[in-house]
């Protein structure tokens, strides 16, 4: 049984599900037809993200332990045992900052084995160069001159998106709510904002397009065209085709501009996926039916994908709650705040409920062996 093995098998797909009350793994060795569950890990704790690092064959989890603060835990044996970072992510003494939550974990590039990135709240990037055993704060973000003006979104001042660039390991994009997109081309030595043409109409009319202050909800890079980046934002869905320098609004025919997760599969022509909600005033799906919406032309036109999803489905999917795999045809996965886990083996054309009784899902991640 895959669930009892300490290593991923060849051709295995691993689905990592973080919830408000612990974490679960779902593993498939037959082309995503059947899944074996494994867990429950971190009972009662909030898991904001999990990821699998294929370089070191390690699992990472961003754990919130309530009153006792956040931590990062690592498993080298596919969840059999977990070990906390010996030097956890911390702000230096005198900074007046303290890590409140840990969010997205992103393995670094192939040429930097051992490097892991971590997004935290209050917004900052932490870097590990020893496979997650110890963490160092990125000083340039921590001491960014605009930091005193940064405002938190409803989910806190969180760094939730980290996009490495396979073409150049010195380049990295990050997304912070509600600061916007930031970019470094010198391994984090300096950062600049990349929010041109991204709407922020919760500000007065005179500053609807500020240098920073945008409420980005999730950033995704196109697997096919590395210069193309998408973002689901509080104020719409946006696309950049020049690696973030300029953005265009691609909300187009979506039923609303508001949502949280965003994913892209890796077909020859990648399909991108969002999960629109009515708006920030209600945060429920349109007409009480949850639908993933997708686009095959990088957001010029969108269409709904809800075959297999109940007609009454007041689901909400959080920013880390929907991911696509790199298989052909692409698989898509989402977990809801009411504990349903859905997957599709055909790019969202039909959906199957993998589990309907999980705790509220905070994060979903998928990896191949």
């Amino acid at each position, binding site marked *: 049984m895959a669930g009892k093995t300490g290593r991923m098998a060849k051709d295995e797909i691993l689905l990592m599900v973080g919830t408000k009350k612990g974490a679960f793994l779902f593993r498939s060795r037959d082309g995503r037809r059947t899944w074996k569950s494994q867990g429950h890990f971190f009972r009662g704790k909030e898991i904001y993200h999990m990821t699998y690092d294929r370089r070191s064959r390690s699992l990472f989890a961003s754990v919130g*332990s*309530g*009153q*006792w*603060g956040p*931590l990062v835990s690592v498993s080298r044996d596919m969840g059999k045992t977990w070990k*906390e970072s*010996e030097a*956890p992510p*911390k*702000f*230096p*003494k*005198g*900074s*007046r*900052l*303290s*890590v409140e939550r840990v969010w997205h974990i992103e393995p670094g590039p192939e040429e930097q084995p051992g490097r892991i990135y971590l997004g935290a709240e209050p917004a900052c990037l932490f870097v590990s160069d020893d496979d997650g055993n110890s963490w160092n704060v990125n000083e340039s973000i921590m001491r960014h001159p605009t930091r005193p003006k940064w405002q938190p979104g409803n989910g806190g001042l969180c760094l939730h998106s980290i996009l490495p660039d396979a073409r150049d390991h010195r380049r990295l994009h990050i997304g912070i709510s509600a600061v916007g997109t930031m970019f470094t081309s010198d391994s984090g030595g300096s950062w600049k904002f990349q929010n041109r043409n991204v709407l922020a109409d919760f500000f007065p009319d005179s500053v609807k397009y500020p240098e920073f202050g945008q409420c980005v909800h999730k950033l995704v890079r196109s697997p096919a065209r590395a210069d193309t980046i998408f973002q689901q934002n509080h104020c719409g869905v946006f696309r950049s085709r020049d690696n973030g320098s300029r953005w265009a609004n691609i909300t187009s025919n979506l039923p609303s501009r508001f949502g949280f997760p965003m994913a892209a599969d890796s077909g020859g022509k990648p399909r991108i996926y969002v999960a629109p909600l009515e708006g920030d005033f209600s945060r429920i799906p349109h007409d009480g039916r949850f639908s993933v919406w997708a686009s095959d032309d990088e957001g010029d036109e969108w269409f709904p994908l809800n075959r297999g999803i109940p007609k009454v489905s007041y689901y909400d999917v959080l920013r880390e709650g929907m991911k696509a795999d790199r298989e052909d045809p692409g698989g898509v996965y989402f977990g809801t705040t009411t504990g349903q886990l859905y997957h599709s083996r055909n790019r969202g054309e039909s959906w199957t409920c993998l589990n309907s009784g999980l705790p509220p899902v905070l994060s979903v991640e998928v990896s191949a062996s």
Partner: protein
Amino acid sequence: MVHLKSSDARGSPAGSGGRKLHVVLSMHLKDYTGGRNEIDIPAAESVGVLIGDLDILFPGISSRILDDQGGVRRHVNIFVDGEEIRRGAGIRTSLSDALEVVILPSVAGG
């Protein structure tokens, strides 16, 4: 020498003859303490020093009790002989005459 105690073994400090402090820890911290929630530990001069001593015994436990700046986490309460330390000198609270330190989370929920 430190003596780990189960919850029904509270009382007589043993060992080297130095003054001992009785420390009660939330069961939420059992992953760090090997399941124990009470220990007798050589007396420390202050709460801050005590937490450092606890971290030597139970690596990582201080990060659960203290935030990055060394203050007690907002939703963690430390009682010295029944007095919550925020009402006194906080982490610098003296333990010179203390008998018992209790570390608990604040109440959360219904």
